[in-house]
């Protein structure tokens, strides 16, 4: 398990093979399969609701997310969390030719 600290670059998602994806973080590339991508999307969506963001801002001002079946731990402040949410939304809704 690794812990991601400090991130100034936006998070990026790339398609490695037919069913393998890469989440590019400022420190490393995390390999994910599709169910792990779905789980990441669920967690990030849960953390970026209005109430959750309010709670984060009014408490520690960061969120920790386990990724890739708890193999990695991401440390995200609110802008990073929102960037990752945006990236995931683009990934799940973008036309096929962007990734394939």
């Amino acid at each position, binding site marked *: 398990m690794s812990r991601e600290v400090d991130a100034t670059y936006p998070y990026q998602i790339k*398609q490695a093979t*037919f069913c393998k994806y890469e989440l590019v973080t400022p420190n490393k590339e995390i390999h994910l399969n*599709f169910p792990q991508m779905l789980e990441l999307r669920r967690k990030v969506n849960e953390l970026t609701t209005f109430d959750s963001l309010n709670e984060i801002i009014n408490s520690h001002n960061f969120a920790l997310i386990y990724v890739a079946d708890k193999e990695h731990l991401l440390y995200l402040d609110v802008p990073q969390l929102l960037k990752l949410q945006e990236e995931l939304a683009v990934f*799940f*809704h973008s036309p096929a030719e962007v990734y394939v």
Partner: protein
Amino acid sequence: MNATAIRKQMSIHPDVMDLLNQQVAMEMKASASYLAMASWCDQRELLNSKAFFYKQAEEEREHAMKIFTFINDNGGAALSPEVTNVNNDFESLRNVYETGLEHEIAVSESIFNIFRSARKEGDLITEVFLQWFITEQSEEEDTFRSIIDVFDLMEGMPLKMIDERLPKE
């Protein structure tokens, strides 16, 4: 829908999948609520009503499982829901059935909402899958309304006598 990057992994739209997961939670909550109603009737020896609600509880769980497996079978991620705040307190048998009808209407409305969303996103697989649920909900609502009609027709009769005239399923 056909053109999204994840189409090779998932046959259903991700936003529709989220709504389907919410529906699983709603069906499981309905199942737990019917179980509470069955228990209320069972404790008062209302034999037909208790059989009816035990059956309803099972049916709602079957509905939830149908949606649950549908999500996974189509490449999505089904989520096991948390069921909280189940009401176990009722004022009368009629109130139990009226609450049941309210549950059914809420479930129907939720399914209509997913159906509309699936249509908007071009998710034909979910749209066709939900058609069975729409027919089923129409039947469920009719069953509850018919039972509430019996209460109106037999107003003032002993509760046990009313219960004996109600369907077991």
